[in-house]
């Protein structure tokens, strides 16, 4: 007889389970944020925790992000392990000084003497018409700045293991969950994000990309909800005889450069599918990784990038669907790569 040790969970359930297990294991772990108590987090990441741990450890805060994110930094320096929630990543504007100039820098400025085990959780992503101030991804913004590890899970299994790893990490970790894969009962989601999750605690090391689907023709690099879109696109491409490999980076800081290189060396074609802004971000970073290794990578076609085309996220449905890359856009971009050709060196 085998013991049943996994269940299918939504990403929201997996995240709250990881937090609960770490809170049970370690008394110094606690949670602060807006509507994370009675409400269980607007996106369910702290569901059931208030009932289990009480309000001394599950602390609803005033709408004072500068104060409570700074409080997390101070509490961490004093030996606690805070998990602190920024309800939407878009709200970073009201508290960026505490994030960028303090949480991200104090360890370095102290010569490594200040340890800041803070997990900063936040909701990202659009697709449900919440407009320009509630739909951004912005992981590129946080990955750009040294000093914070950036975790962007695409499914429940990874989310639990990465959250456990994040809580146990002695450094600041930004844990960014896309609303459209949390499995909420009030928002459409991509169902590939709900999957089998072990009951016991486990960790997934940072900086290890995951080959979600193997393929030999093209590499699609993605994170978060875009991984689920890439998988759907790969299935469609399969019907057309194109074998796409889908690489889920899982963390941006640290970035698993080797897995990107390994996959593109195999396929010779790269598409980066991203829901963040096109300019100065993830897609450019991955393209640069390949460009810097053209001495050891043989490309069969140009590199392609799909991302939000440097405009704020518009409200209107047709406009939002247009600026956020969709499954059909991934399919189309791969088709273009398959007929793309590299410039041939001129004969001597």
């Amino acid at each position, binding site marked *: 007889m085998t013991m049943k040790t996994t269940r299918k969970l939504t990403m929201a359930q997996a995240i709250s389970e990881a937090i609960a297990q770490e809170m049970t294991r370690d008394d110094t772990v606690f949670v602060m944020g807006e509507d994370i108590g009675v409400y269980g987090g607007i996106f369910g990441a702290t569901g059931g925790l208030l009932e289990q741990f009480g309000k001394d450890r599950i602390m609803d805060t*005033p709408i004072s992000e500068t104060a409570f994110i700074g409080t997390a930094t101070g509490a961490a320096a004093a030996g606690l392990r805070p998990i602190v929630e920024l309800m939407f990543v878009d709200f970073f504007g009201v508290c960026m000084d505490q994030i960028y100039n303090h949480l991200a820098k104090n360890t370095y400025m102290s010569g490594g003497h200040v340890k800041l085990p803070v997990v900063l959780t936040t909701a990202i992503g659009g697709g449900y018409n*919440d407009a320009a101030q509630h739909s951004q991804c912005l992981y590129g913004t946080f990955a750009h700045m040294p000093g914070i590890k950036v975790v962007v899970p695409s499914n429940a299994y990874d989310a639990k293991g990465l959250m456990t790893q994040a809580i146990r990490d002695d450094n600041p970790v930004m844990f960014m969950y896309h609303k459209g894969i949390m499995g909420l009962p009030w*928002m459409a989601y991509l169902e590939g994000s709900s999957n089998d999750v072990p009951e016991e605690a486990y960790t997934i090391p940072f900086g290890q990309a995951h080959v979600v689907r193997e393929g030999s023709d093209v590499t699609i690099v993605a994170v978060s909800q875009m991984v689920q879109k890439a998988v759907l696109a790969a299935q469609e491409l399969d019907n057309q005889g194109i074998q796409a490999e889908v690489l889920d980076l899982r963390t941006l800081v640290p970035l698993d450069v080797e897995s990107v290189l390994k996959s593109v060396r195999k396929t010779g074609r790269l598409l980066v599918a991203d829901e963040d802004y096109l300019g100065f971000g993830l897609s450019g970073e991955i393209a640069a990784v390949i460009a810097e290794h053209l001495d050891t990578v043989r490309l069969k076609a140009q590199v392609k990038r799909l991302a939000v085309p440097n405009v704020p996220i*518009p409200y209107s449905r047709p406009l939002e669907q247009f600026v956020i890359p969709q499954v059909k856009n991934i399919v189309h971009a791969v088709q273009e790569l398959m007929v793309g050709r590299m410039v041939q060196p001129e004969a001597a």
Partner: protein
Amino acid sequence: MQVAKDKLLWMYEKMVEIRFYEETMAAVYMEGKLPPAIQKGLAFDIGSGPVPGEMHLAAGQEPVAVGICAHLSDDDTVVGTHRPHHFAIAKGVPLKPMTAEMFGKVTGLGKGKGGHMHLFDNAHKFSCSGIIGASMPIACGTALAAKKLGQDWVAVAFFGEGAANQGSFHESLNLAALWKLPVIFVCEDNQWAISVPKSQATSVAWVADRAAGYGIPGIRVSENDAVQVYAAVAPAIARARRGEGPSLIEVKTDRYFGHFQGDPESYRPKGEVSQLKLNDPIPKLAAQLRSAHGLSPAQDAELVARAQARVSDAFEFARHSAYPAELDALNDVFVP
């Protein structure tokens, strides 16, 4: 304070219009968002239907909007919140382009780019933001402009009681007091910051008491009543127009709907809303108009029908307007 009959009638008609607008929106918003039209297993889909995305409605909070805006002209500025419809309607923002914006149509105030939390109407000097506490610095700016331009225009910043714990509140009050800016800071205290009650988030019972910390008048309005709001804010507006600086007003008001439509409101005591509705400000003002100013039932019915027709026309206009072309998403990041 004796309030003229025409002001009372204006406030009453605007409140009727706002209430009908919000109730109409509540119904339209639910179109296409329930099973079986949505993904299997979901109870509700926020991203479906003719008006997708978050929707924050202000039914119950009409007195704050009309009591303040009854003092304002087109030259005065209003900056609203993520729950902005009552302010917009009271400030005179035309209903058709406002509603079309919420439908994401090309005829909308922002050609469909902004949505319901991001309404911009230059002609009526109205704007709002989905970020908590964001109204106050912007209002300081339009007030500074009025001062520099030598005009007696005022700026009103509306915000919820939850926003009084945001840094922008404290910074803006200090700046406006220091520079004697013609700003009226209006706190709508509906007791709830999403699920967190004021008592668990704010260190004082009255946000208005914080005015003392900035050396400006703080005014408490403890009834959700348009006439009381109108009377209480009058000295603050006069003070601002005289160039003597800002004031802070706090109005107790009631949120009838959830934080957003679809909010399960499990945090809210059962029966709270039906209790609040016993003290509804609209029939209260109607009764006042009947008893003290001889408003007849026929006049009342005509006024209500007129207000409701404006709302219905706006929804029809929005529904039948066209969506913008996809490529228009790339325009308007900068002006030419």
